[in-house]
């Protein structure tokens, strides 16, 4: 297939680029720089053409291609159809390679006027090359008879595809993966910067041009992660935006490392210290992206996660593992070889300096990353050590990361108050007073309304502190120099995020509720009524629930359906968004229930079940129809006896009221207990021949002529089981994310501007 050839051409292009870039910086040869660029651009054009072909095949339903058949179908709407491009392994590697290719074009022009292009693009080409290698092994352009040799006849065209996993079928599928891959590509760039610095033996200047790229990586990967969290919350019904799931954790780890690096790089720019730290962190950004890919795509976690990980075959497994070893080994070996010639600038051991605070904050982030990766890898670790697979509980992550989270939050406020090099204690204190004061009051309020754990109280205090201090800073910097406001704005976002984590984790309320159709139930301040289900698109069902609160009624329609694709029950929640909280309704299941009728004069007895009425215990034993005495001479008369066991004061007596059916006309014959205290009249009978135990009878029972009150006939009703929850101030999480992103964007612009050659004396100073 032409697509496969083009992938091969793209791979050749990248090899040319790799070799030519190497020669160009080795021999300082400008001509080879040109060859390298041609090679790289050929590769990117190849990736564009290959992607266009795959997209065309998907949009035109060419099901003779295994990939198209596996992940799309005729029924998919256009948006999702396009998104099925990255619904499978091969396609996700293609989109990753394509985006990495594009990012590389920017990286090339960014680095060309800074004297970095040779080394940087040499390393970056290796990354694109490895992705292309993966595409050669996992070819998205295989046809079905090539995928199933001997089983499928050549030229066969399936009528329809298997379709997309229903869990992926919403608009987040269109936006989330590409953003995540931009993050992955940016982390490739940060790796390339660190390794290029080692190749160039320039251990100090590289941080300046690299800073905006680290910020870009943190921004894009962070956005990708949060979009995934929002997706899980809004559509998948996880009940929250974060579940410490391996898929989430494994992209969180490189993000944390990139974030730590961003901060120590700022410290290096000021103090010259952290030379090795930054190189190591830079190397690990991309190695951890690869490890993340390995964890989620190699099937190693298959036994212990709710996610269904596809087994990609041993080829991909080995390849991914060797990529990790290759990129990790290459970077670290180079670092080891160059270690001696690196300048060693001791950390300013002034504890009251901003660089020291940044260092501590970065160290705390690294610890969070370390514990997260250890926890996520626990199935692998336990398998290696004990030969038995087991995973850690979510409590592991909460327990280990919270103390470091407190440190991160506090330092994100504290560092802003400190000056570079050193600060006077008096100044620090003076600047801290508003923050400490407001945080103490706010934390006090939150303790009063329900915070109990010491860790959460500390975290709350730190979260308010980072928020207040950074608002202070943003106002101050914003007045004088708005271009520098990025850090403060991003950290306001961080403060809001932390507060959102706390409110949603500590003040959330949830309740499992059964909603009998038509019966209102009070829960969490809402009056919920299940009103029945209605179709919601192809084979899907919406379960309509009205939620009434303070006179306002909102209709919620969580969706639940059995999916043919993977034979599973899909549940989508529905949410009431309010400014201060979300009311979240996740469907759990639909059941049915025997409910008593309305209280009244009759009693309904299920066969075999005892019923206590006043001091009597009455059991409906069964119908008595075959006994001869009931069959009268006249053939059109039938008598049905209702056998009742009446127990009173430990004595059991059989009482048999009867129904006489004479030519369609019903006649009821009451029966009395032997002491004539109770009289039984049959009101109606409901025999069930398939399942006699489901038979029931409704009786009118009189004691001394007075009717005993009971309940009417039972009926079967649908019961919708839902989990309702209140997510207080969850909007803080989303607003925090947006502000942090805006802050990072401002930072990127500022740092990219600072890295422009005209703003720097000399880049190529060897």
């Amino acid at each position, binding site marked *: 297939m032409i697509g496969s050839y083009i992938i091969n051409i793209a791979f050749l292009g990248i090899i040319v680029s790799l070799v030519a870039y190497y020669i160009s910086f080795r021999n300082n040869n400008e001509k080879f720089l040109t060859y390298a660029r041609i090679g790289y651009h050929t590769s990117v054009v190849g990736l564009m053409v290959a992607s266009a072909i795959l997209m065309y095949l998907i949009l035109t339903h060419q099901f003779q291609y295994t990939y198209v058949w596996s992940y799309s179908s005729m029924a998919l709407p256009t948006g999702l159809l396009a998104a099925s491009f990255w619904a499978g392994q091969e396609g996700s590697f293609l989109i990753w390679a394509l985006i990495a290719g594009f990012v590389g074009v920017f990286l090339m022009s960014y680095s060309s006027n800074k004297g970095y292009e040779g080394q940087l693009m040499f390393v970056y080409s290796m990354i694109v090359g490895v992705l292309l290698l993966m595409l050669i092994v996992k070819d998205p352009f295989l046809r079905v008879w090539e995928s199933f040799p001997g089983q*499928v006849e050549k030229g066969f*065209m399936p*009528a*329809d595809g298997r379709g997309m996993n229903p869990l992926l079928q919403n608009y987040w599928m269109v936006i989330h993966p590409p953003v995540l891959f931009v993050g992955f590509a940016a982390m490739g760039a940060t790796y390339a910067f660190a390794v290029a610095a080692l190749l160039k033996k320039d251990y100090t200047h590289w941080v300046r041009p690299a800073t905006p790229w680290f910020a870009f990586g943190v921004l894009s990967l962070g956005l990708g992660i949060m979009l995934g969290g929002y997706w899980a919350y809004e559509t998948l019904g996880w009940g929250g935006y974060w579940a410490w799931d391996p898929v989430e954790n494994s992209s969180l780890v490189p993000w944390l490392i990139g974030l730590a690096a961003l901060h120590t790089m700022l410290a290096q720019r000021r103090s010259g210290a952290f030379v090795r730290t930054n190189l190591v962190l830079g190397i690990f950004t991309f190695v951890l992206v690869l490890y993340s890919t390995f964890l989620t795509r190699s099937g190693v976690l298959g036994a212990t996660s709710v996610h269904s990980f596809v087994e990609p075959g041993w080829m991909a497994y080995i390849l991914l593992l060797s990529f990790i070893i290759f990129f990790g080994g290459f970077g670290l070996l180079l670092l080891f070889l160059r270690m001696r010639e690196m300048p060693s600038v001791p950390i300013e051991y002034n504890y009251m300096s901003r660089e020291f605070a940044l260092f501590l904050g970065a160290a705390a982030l690294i610890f969070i990353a370390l514990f997260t990766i250890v926890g996520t890898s626990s199935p692998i670790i336990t398998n290696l050590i004990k030969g038995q*697979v087991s995973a850690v509980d979510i409590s592991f992550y909460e327990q280990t990361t919270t103390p470091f989270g407190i440190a991160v939050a506090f330092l994100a406020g504290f560092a802003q108050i400190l000056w570079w090099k050193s600060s006077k204690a008096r100044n620090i204190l003076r600047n801290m007073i508003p923050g400490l004061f407001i945080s103490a009051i706010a934390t006090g309020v939150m303790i009063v309304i329900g915070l109990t754990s010491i860790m959460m109280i500390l975290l709350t205090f730190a979260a308010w502190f980072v928020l207040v201090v950074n608002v202070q800073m943003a106002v101050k910097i914003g007045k004088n120099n708005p271009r520098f406001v990025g850090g403060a704005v991003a950290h306001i976002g961080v403060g809001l995020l932390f507060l959102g984590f706390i409110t949603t984790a500590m003040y959330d309320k949830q309740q499992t509720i059964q909603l009998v159709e038509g019966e209102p139930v009070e829960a969490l301040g809402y009056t919920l009524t299940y009103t029945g289900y209605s179709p919601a698109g192809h084979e899907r069902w919406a379960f309509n629930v009205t939620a009434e609160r303070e006179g306002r009624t909102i209709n919620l329609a969580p969706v639940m359906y059995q999916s043919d694709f993977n034979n599973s029950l899909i549940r989508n929640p529905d949410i009431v968004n309010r400014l201060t909280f979300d009311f979240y309704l996740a469907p*759990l299941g639909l059941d049915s229930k025997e409910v008593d009728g309305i209280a009244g004069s009759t009693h309904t007895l299920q066969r075999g079940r005892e019923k206590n009425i006043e001091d009597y215990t009455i059991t409906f034993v069964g119908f008595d129809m075959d006994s001869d005495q009931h069959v009268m001479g006249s053939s059109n008369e039938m008598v049905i006896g209702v056998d009742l066991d009446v127990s009173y004061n430990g004595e059991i007596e059989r009482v048999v009221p009867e129904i006489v059916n004479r030519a369609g006309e019903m006649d009821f014959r009451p029966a009395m207990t032997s002491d004539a205290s109770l009289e039984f009249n049959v009101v109606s009978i409901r025999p069930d021949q398939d399942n006699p135990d489901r038979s029931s009878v409704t009786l009118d029972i009189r004691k001394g002529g007075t009717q005993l009150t009971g309940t009417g006939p039972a009926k079967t009703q649908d019961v919708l*089981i839902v989990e309702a929850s209140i997510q207080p101030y969850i909007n803080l999480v989303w607003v925090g994310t947006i502000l942090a992103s805006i802050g990072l964007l401002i930072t990127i612009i500022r740092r990219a501007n600072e890295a422009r050659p005209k703003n720097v004396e000399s880049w190529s100073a060897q």
Partner: protein
Amino acid sequence: MNAKAIVAGVIIVIFLIFGAWSFLESNVEYTNFQDAYETGRTVQVEGTWVEEKGDEYNADRNEFIFYMADKNGQVVRVVLEGPRPNNFEIATSVVARGQFVSEDEFRSTNVLTKCPSKYEGTAEEMMGASSSDGQYYE
């Protein structure tokens, strides 16, 4: 300088010990019912649903009750705090996470069901699903 390095080293070691301790503490092992009963710990037990013994959902308490045989064939009554799990009937095996609260009740907070995966398509499926209306072309 040296004293500082030692202090830093000690702090790091303390953190690592804290992490290792948490790891062991929260590690949920895969084991069998016998072991789970003897240790009383929260564990994961893999096994199969004993269909003959039936199952029941108690809507009032939101509990799903079923019988499960572990790999040694020991059958235990499992009470899941929640509704019937996804794909319970078609699961080839189930993994119950929880602990014994009494001799005859394994109280579970989460039951995973392992299903015959349909993620990867097979040739039979392709031919079977569409042989009637599939078309050939050159």
